[in-house]
């Protein structure tokens, strides 16, 4: 038995299992509600219940006052649901969020291309436009595989009656193995979309840095395509890190964009250049390439990071060393089903 939890003011909707606390459900879905003790004692995670029935759990009478209980306040860390519920939490309103409703789609595969030895570009075409913000992802149902798999959308949302995905073969990964070995053109695929808070904050009107690792190129590509088409005037700089030359894809595409647009720069980097690779570009990790390009100083920018967790962490450290902080850093970590629970973290950072 599970219930639906709607979180205002962002309008996000989550499935919450019986006995699962509101806080746990939110944190697992990547929605940060401020919290401290996690045991109903401190009142940091207090939220308003606007609709629905809840069990207050073991909320301390000193952390949740009687008058607050009467007003419908609960402590998210101990509160569980007894019906579908709407809450309002202290979550920062994001001016650039469009809060698009999640919709189920079924489309047809119209293209499968090998772009590197272990990455396929897959295009799913639909009879209708798919509504999403550049940078968001879909939950794809892979035939015969339990649960859904998350993939970022690589094309611009403008007039999109199709979506483009970049899918790397994860060793022993059921979902990606199906895509690489079984999926073929004309197959039907179902997915729901759009998900995630990884989208560009245009309203801040700052120059943007994109750091992508491997297939983490997908979201930045969607973002850059849209921004350039819209005539965004600030500088956009894309760093794409891969291991070897053969892992690099879309190089010609971004090079031609860089030639066409004065405010766009493209810097690919190889971390394990092979002797045979014909290469006169950046060598080393992608965050090091970014440090060299910006001479170690990132203040005044916005950064969008997309890729595997070690790349994200290394990039955050490089950016912070160059005086760019949490308020201007956005990231999308690529976790596969095999990645377990994240390291124990302190409440020092909320999103990064």
């Amino acid at each position, binding site marked *: 038995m599970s219930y639906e939890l709607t979180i205002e*003011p962002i309008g996000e909707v989550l499935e919450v299992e019986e006995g699962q606390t509101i806080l746990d459900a939110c944190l697992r879905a990547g929605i940060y509600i401020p919290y*401290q003790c996690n045991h109903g004692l*401190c009142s*940091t995670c207090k939220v308003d219940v606007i609709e629905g029935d809840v069990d207050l759990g073991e909320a301390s009478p*000193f*952390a949740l006052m*009687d008058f607050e209980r009467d007003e419908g306040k609960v402590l998210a860390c101990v509160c569980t649901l007894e019906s579908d519920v709407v809450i*309002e939490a202290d979550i920062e*309103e994001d001016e650039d969020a469009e809060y698009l409703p999640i919709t189920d789609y079924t489309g047809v595969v119209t293209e499968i291309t090998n772009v590197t030895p272990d990455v396929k570009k897959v295009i799913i075409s639909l009879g209708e436009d798919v509504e999403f913000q550049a940078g968001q992802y879909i939950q794809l149902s892979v035939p015969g595989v339990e649960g859904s798999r998350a993939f970022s959308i690589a094309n611009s949302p403008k007039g999109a009656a199709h979506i483009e995905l970049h899918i790397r073969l994860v060793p022993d990964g059921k979902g990606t193995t199906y895509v690489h070995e079984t999926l073929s053109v004309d197959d039907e695929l179902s997915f729901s979309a759009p998900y995630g808070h990884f989208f560009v904050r245009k309203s801040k009107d700052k120059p943007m840095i994109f750091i992508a690792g491997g297939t983490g190129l997908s979201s930045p590509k969607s973002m850059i395509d849209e921004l350039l088409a819209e005539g965004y005037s600030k500088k956009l700089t894309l760093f794409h890190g891969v291991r070897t030359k053969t892992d690099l894809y879309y190089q010609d595409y971004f090079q031609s964009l860089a030639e066409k647009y004065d405010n766009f720069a493209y810097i690919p980097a190889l971390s394990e250049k092979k002797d045979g690779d014909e290469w006169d570009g950046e060598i080393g990790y992608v965050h090091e390439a970014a440090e060299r390009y910006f001479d170690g100083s990132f203040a005044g920018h916005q950064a969008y990071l997309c890729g595997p967790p070690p790349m994200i962490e290394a990039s955050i450290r490089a950016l*912070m060393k160059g005086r760019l902080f949490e308020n201007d850093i956005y990231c999308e970590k690529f976790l596969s089903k095999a990645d377990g629970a994240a390291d124990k973290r302190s409440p020092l950072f909320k999103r990064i």
Partner: protein
Amino acid sequence: MAEKRKKKLGIKQRYSMLTRGLSWETTYQDMDKVFPYDKFEGIHIHDWEAWEDPFRLTMDAYWKFQSEKEKKLYAVIDSFAQNNGHLGITDARYVNAIKLFLTGISPAEYQAARGFTHVGRQFRGVGPRVACQMQAIDELRHAQTQIHSMSHYNKYFDGLHSGPYMHDRVWYLSVPKSFFDDARTAGPFEFLTSISFAFEYVLTNLLFVPFMSGAAFNGDMATVTFGFSAQSDEARHMTLGLAVIKFMLEQDERNIPIVQRWMDKWFWRGTRLLTLVAMMMDYMLPKRVMSWREAWDIYFTEAGGALFKDLERYGIRPPKYADIATKEAEHLSHQAWHIFYNYTHAAAFHTWVPEKEELDWLSEKYPNTFDKYYRPRLEYLDKEEKAGRRFYNDTLPMLCQVCQIPMGYTEMDDPTTISFQSSEYKGDKYHTCSLGCKDIFDYEPEKYVQAWLPVHQIYQGNCGGPEIEDVLKWYNFNLGADNLDYSGSPDQKLWNEWQAHRKKA
């Protein structure tokens, strides 16, 4: 397809709409003259507006919350008194932990109130100013409610009759007093780093969690209720600690080395202060919760480890000497208890040699050190006591110039050698108990040479007279009741009478 939701104002925006425009740039006077203290520490702030309010509370809501908390707490305190709650505790020895808390920690809450009141005036940014003012009121409330919660014990037990007075005079209470004096006489940013960050964030769980669960385990419901009532404020205080650190680190890179030095200093001072808690956990609770070593592992090594890993992103490293402090967790409670056992005749609480099951518990919790170094010593003291040769140390100890703890702690890799550091300053020699305290002295010698060291003061004739008895009277001790062993004390006699009465009934 569902409709797009209409955007609502978030809580943060609502709060800023409600509170904006309540501060202003002064024009008759230069801002630097109105706020003379927020620059001299070398902290550079470019944009005070970048301060993120860690909690969004209006005074109106604040009073509403606090008044309900008070109502609930005082109902419990009243019923504890009416039902003779003191009869329900595990053993009268437990009350000695209360004595230490009331004389050592509750006056420190008041010190914190004074400190936050001061810095709540000194920041030119309105965000931190308001946060500090609210915390000042919280701290005052904590001092009051602690005194009220524990006052019931004062009707029956000794050593609880003049906490604040003793705090200003007694030798071992100069440890917490000097800690807060040091913080309050620093600049406003250092004060917040010391109290809000190092004390309230990094170390508070090592103080409150053991103390409150100790109270719960030992039947002291009044203190437990106070603990819950305070913890709901502590969360705000911890958040303030993180907010101020992030603010300083993000505003200017020149702030980073300054913040690092403060973290090093206040981490070390904090661990020294917490020795009193360590001793309480391992020796003073008749029913034990967890060992100090275990508490250290959970609340510092694990939780603090996660924090310092995140702080690394700012270029901050873990506090200097954290490795030594972790080694000390195996030793300090035993060494501190030994110091107090030496000087119980000059303390306002009782000590004792733990009973056999208690020694066994310590052996189990400290397999690396207790049987090797500390158990034989305690068994020897017990034997001597039973043979009528109870050892009291009649000379006064040398104190560390910084933390003011008697210099009885050892080197951690050689627990039979006393750790001993010294520095020369303007032709005089000053002694410190550890490398951590020596570093602190050496960076600001002019500050620490002014320390009010109880032993020096006694020898200079400033503490009531030349004999120990004169000094203890000056401390306002009831001699023969407040001090000396638990065994033979009026506390013990009264407790035994109650127990005998209960058996008859």
